[in-house]
């Protein structure tokens, strides 16, 4: 690690050379790999758990056209409550449940953060499927579940996928805050860097989080190409997304 005194007194060139020293020092490699994997793991598991929790509810409510107010207000709520606040809320809950500090409050906060985009995109996607297509599906004799699985979900898939993508990227960026409540991940570099006045470490952490977010975004972009069916199809009754 570069000395805090150097970083404080040095110029931009010194900062870059400190970063370079940090990154090329084999002593830091294990830590970087572990923190990246931890960060990735908590992000993906939180997104997945959020999807498993909220997708069935969103699909059910959208299929039966229930809770339209909830659907529109939830996304705004998600935007209005800062992630930092959710972590602050999750911490006492986690302590009360005896789950301690660190991983669990972070995980709970990330799950809560991941749900609104998945919910609203799924809801908008399913309710936006052309009415004629759904009516035809019913008219052919599909049961509610069949209409949902054979028609509404495949047609809403691009929007549902976008919801997952937005959530995942947001979660990767926000998982950084886990370090505040004593968890690891790439946020450690930022928190520790700030605490030690080590700008190089802060920069390494920030860039690593940004790269990881881009990487996850790219994964979803590639995945989108493998969604089944005719992706150019005229799916929705109007522009809904």
């Amino acid at each position, binding site marked *: 690690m570069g000395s805090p005194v150097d970083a404080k007194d040095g110029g931009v060139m010194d900062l870059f050379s400190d970063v370079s020293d940090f990154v090329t020092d084999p002593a830091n490699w294990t830590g970087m790999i572990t923190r990246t994997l931890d960060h990735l793991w908590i992000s993906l598991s939180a997104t997945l758990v959020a999807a498993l929790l909220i997708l069935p509810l969103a699909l059910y409510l959208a299929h039966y056209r229930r809770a339209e107010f909830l659907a529109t207000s939830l996304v705004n709520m998600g935007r209005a409550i800062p992630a930092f606040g959710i972590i602050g809320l999750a911490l006492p809950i986690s302590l009360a449940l005896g789950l301690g500090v660190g991983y669990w409050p972070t995980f709970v906060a990330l799950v809560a953060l991941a749900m609104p985009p998945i919910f609203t995109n799924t809801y908008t996607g399913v309710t936006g499927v052309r009415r004629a297509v759904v*009516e035809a599906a*019913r008219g*052919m004799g599909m049961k509610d579940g069949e209409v949902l699985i054979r*028609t509404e979900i*495949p047609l809403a898939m691009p929007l549902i996928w976008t919801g997952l993508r937005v959530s995942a990227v947001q979660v990767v960026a926000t998982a950084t805050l886990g370090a505040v409540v004593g968890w690891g991940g790439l946020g450690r570099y930022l928190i520790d860097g700030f605490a030690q006045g080590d700008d190089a470490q802060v920069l390494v952490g920030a860039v690593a989080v940004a790269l990881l977010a881009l990487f996850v975004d790219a994964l979803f972009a590639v995945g989108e190409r493998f969604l089944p069916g005719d992706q*150019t199809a005229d799916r929705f009754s109007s522009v809904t997304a």
Partner: protein
Amino acid sequence: MISLVDVTKVFPGMDHPAVDGLSLDIAAGEFVVLVGPSGCGKTTTLKMINRIIEPSSGEIWVDGVAATETPAFELRRGIGYVIQQIGLFPHRTIAENIGTVPELLGWDRPRIAERIEDLVVRVGLDPAMLGRYPSELSGGQQQRVGVARALAADPPVLLLDEPFGAVDPIVRFQLQEEFLRLQEELSKTVVFVTHDIDEALRMGDRIAILNVGGILEQFDTPENILSGPASEFVADFIGGERGLKRLGLRTVGSVDLTRGPVVDVRSDVETARDAMAQYGTEWVALLDGDRLLGWVWGEDLDGQLTDLEPHSFWVELDPESTLRKALNAVVMTRSRVAVVVEDGIYRGMLGLETIAGEVDQ
């Protein structure tokens, strides 16, 4: 096959019923058209038959079973359904679209594939399209797929809601013709909704004319509706030119044709002049055996008939042509007759008197 008994539908929040105490009996194999202005409840009526819309009161029977006593999905699998917006599944290929109901019914794959192959040809589509997606097809082609999809499980009943409303007039005419031909082969019980009275007159065995609020004004054959509208509303709705519309319902084959001033090309000039005198014309038509060669002016008759160059008749009708088309031929040709030829064989001719007589009856 289908019975509506005192069926009423009141939508929530509406003061007046959309359909008010409607009763209809539709026989097996019958093609019934529901027609009327917007707000007459024709689409609501249609959609109550397969319970896309639930009736507020009354009974609906389909194939001897009370519609409301059967689970909706089961009822619908036995009823073909075609809507104006077509509603093909955009994420599924044409083949998958057509195979929807057989798949729901759990047919095995080879049977579904065979059925799809058969249907695609029947509705006049190129089998090469089976692997494509709906967005790659024209409106007319999409609606053919819609009809094929409705027929897939060979349901005894077909419901069609303005099926040809969204295509241009030329394609609409083709689709109507093809559907009528298909219906002749399949003899389904068809309920067909349209706002176009001419389409109704062309397609239906019987037509139910509905007034705003779901009031049945008249339920009868096109011929009877045109010759005896039951109310002022019906008379207004079918519009002017009722005589012409009636001519549009009759075929040339259904009236007695006259032989006309026709002689064999190998006859002599005297025979030709006798034929002209008999019919009071100034021209004579020439035949080679059964084949119509054309016609010549009486003043040109000289020497051998075989030496003359006959004018061809401008319009030749076949027995399937309508009397309306025959009337058009009469007024458009100098000879003032319409000639009828079937498979190259001369059948006879008809003039204005014959045509007008059909409307008088």
